[in-house]
């Protein structure tokens, strides 16, 4: 009798568990995604989410496209009010800054899982390292945006100038093509474009904004030389005079019109330009000391610590990372995928900007936080504050470099002390 009761109880309990499991709702994941391409991007991303939802029954992802304008306020407000998503893409240093406020869940468990099954080998170690902060991975890398030099082959050919390989040749080439409404170089001084160009030249010369221990390195000799180089270009008359007031869009247009022969930008920027046939990428330039270096950002997908479904969130992050090729093929994402396997797709042809950039610049790439390793919370404020923008505007306008650096250094120190 006891055995009968025991058997009955087991059967009933199992049935109840089975019934519960069968009727259990899938884990709901809110996914906020920035717009990484043009207007096709959110459509392609939504289709990808639909594909994920159709591929399994455990997790249901809700997609929300977030515009870049006001992104910081959007995420900070959401976190502060307890309405953060479960998963999001975002600015390069968003994860590390929010992690500092306990709002981000590290993705180390996912990386360990992928290390165990060997699939992590598809992502070069540098991209994983770039997401490290004090021993944990705060985000999972999925694309990279590096800053490279472009030139107008038609303008150089018209003036009989060879593509430069170092700073001296760049200065000479810029001077040679300047005249009749054409200038050597154009910068976007009024937004991040200009400050990233300046930062690229600092890194190119072996400098950088930070020391190894995350303090200010702004006044280092290598940085001063980079700023002197930019000022020399301006004093030669080789810099487009509107550069100080240009935003990135204005500078791109000026370059595409042929108003300037050189510009620093991301590899895919001019792929669909009407002037694409005349636009080429320069290999990394050598600084006077023979150094090479270029700024790169690693964009990542992050999981929020308030999520009720951490495992489901990591499952989605992995799937997204492995299957997101349509974001490039259909969504026209502008950055370069970090996965080697995606880069081998026909969408990124041999000799195309993305592959050439990865091949030629791989040894030159340095993070925004260089010379410090990985990422750290102050990077977001340093990139967003605008004092580096003021620095390049000061340099282009001919202001004394030590005075301009002193002012910038003061602001950098204030941010780092905060």
């Amino acid at each position, binding site marked *: 009798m006891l055995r009968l009761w025991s058997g009955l109880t087991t059967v009933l309990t199992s049935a109840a568990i089975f019934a519960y499991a069968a009727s259990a709702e899938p884990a709901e994941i809110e996914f906020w995604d920035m717009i990484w391409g043009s207007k096709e991007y959110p459509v392609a991303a939504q289709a990808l989410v639909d594909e994920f939802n159709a591929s399994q029954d455990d997790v249901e992802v809700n997609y929300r496209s977030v515009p870049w304008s006001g992104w910081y306020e959007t995420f900070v407000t959401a976190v502060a009010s307890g309405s953060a998503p479960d998963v999001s893409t975002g600015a390069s240093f968003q994860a590390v800054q929010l992690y500092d*406020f306990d709002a981000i869940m590290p993705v180390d468990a996912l990386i360990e899982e992928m290390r165990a099954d060997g699939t992590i080998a598809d992502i070069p170690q540098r991209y994983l390292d770039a997401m490290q902060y004090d021993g944990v991975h705060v985000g999972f890398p999925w694309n990279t945006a590096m800053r490279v030099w472009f030139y107008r082959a038609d303008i150089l050919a018209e003036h009989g100038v060879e593509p430069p390989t170092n700073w001296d040749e760049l200065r000479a080439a810029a001077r040679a093509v300047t005249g009749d409404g054409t200038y050597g170089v154009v910068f976007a001084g009024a937004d991040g474009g200009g400050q990233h160009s300046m930062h690229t030249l600092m890194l190119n010369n072996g400098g950088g904004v930070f020391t190894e221990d995350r303090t200010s390195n702004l006044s280092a000799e290598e940085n001063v030389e980079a700023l002197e180089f930019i000022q020399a270009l301006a004093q030669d008359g080789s810099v487009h005079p*509107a550069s100080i*007031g240009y935003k990135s869009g*204005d500078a791109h247009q000026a370059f595409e019109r042929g108003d300037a022969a050189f510009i620093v930008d991301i590899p895919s920027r001019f792929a669909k330009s009407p002037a694409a046939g005349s636009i080429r990428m320069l290999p990394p330039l050598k600084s006077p000391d023979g150094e090479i270096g270029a700024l790169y950002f690693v964009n990542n997908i992050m999981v929020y610590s308030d999520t009720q479904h951490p495992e489901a969130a990591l499952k989605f992050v992995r799937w997204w990372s492995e299957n997101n090729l349509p974001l490039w093929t259909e969504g026209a994402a502008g950055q370069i995928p970090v996965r080697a396997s995606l880069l081998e797709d026909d969408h990124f042809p041999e000799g195309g900007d993305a592959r050439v950039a990865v091949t030629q610049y791989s040894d030159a790439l340095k993070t925004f936080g260089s010379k410090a390793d990985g990422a750290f919370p102050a990077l977001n404020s340093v990139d967003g504050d605008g004092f580096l*923008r003021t620095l390049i*505007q000061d340099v282009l306008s001919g202001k004394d470099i030590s005075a301009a650096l002193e002012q910038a250094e003061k602001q950098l120190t204030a941010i780092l002390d*905060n």
Partner: protein
Amino acid sequence: MMDTSAGRSISVWRRCARRLRHPDVTVPLTFLLPSLILLFGLIAYPMGVGFWLSLTDGSLLRAGEFVGLSNYADLLTSNEFYKVLRFSTIYAVANVMGCYVLGLSLALLMNRAMPGKGVFRVLLLLPWIIPSLVAAIGWRWMAADEHALFNQFLRLFGSSPIYFLSDQTWTIVIVIAAKIWRSFPFMMLSLLAALQGIDRSLYEAAAIDGATRWQMFWEITLPQIKTVSIVLALLMTIWSVNDFDMPWLIAQGGPAGATENLIVYAFRFTFGRNDVGMGAAVSFFTMLVLMILVVVMLRRQKDS
């Protein structure tokens, strides 16, 4: 002695409580209560929280520690702050004056009988109607470089191009001009209403006395619209000091901080540096300056 004073204070409290219970007090208080709750919830409480934040070193995601008045001390000892204050003053004064002169001139014109007046009035309102972003992008396009409209116009006179947004002084001029262009329709409309309210017999009497047009304008028109003018100047000052759109959308406060006003400065502290304490301190300082200005101008209006 103690007992007597305690007894006296109890009786004062009782008297107050009795007075508060009187229908003459309770009825209006009951009617006022919803408004008082709204005022407290929508104005007093956020202001109180804002002031408290200005006394802390918090960020957008962390409350921070109480630091007393040190944010204000840092602000008042910073050279950057005085540069920002200087631009805010220039921006506000230029806007008020520019809008007043342009608004009054056009209001005087619109106050006269002329063909197509209705069409002109609508056209003149357009700058005020279109969104700030569109206006700012339009001004950037017109001033961006040698291909832009302003330089095409200058070329007609043989002038070499001016890179308006790359020069600090010119950028200040462009930002102020854009703000005046955007704000003058409100001034024009309000002054037109004031002009239409002036008793015509005053002008007729002045004409009989042989007054010139200038004398009529100086002795009748201006005094008659003085009260409205003070209120408009006050509003325009507040809007100019609190304006974020034009300095940010046209020049992002640049070049090199030349067009950074108090509000852009507060925004940069709060969202650029994640330093909410300093951002709140800048905002409170701005509010204090504006409140002093409001009191002075309203007193002036009362005296007049």
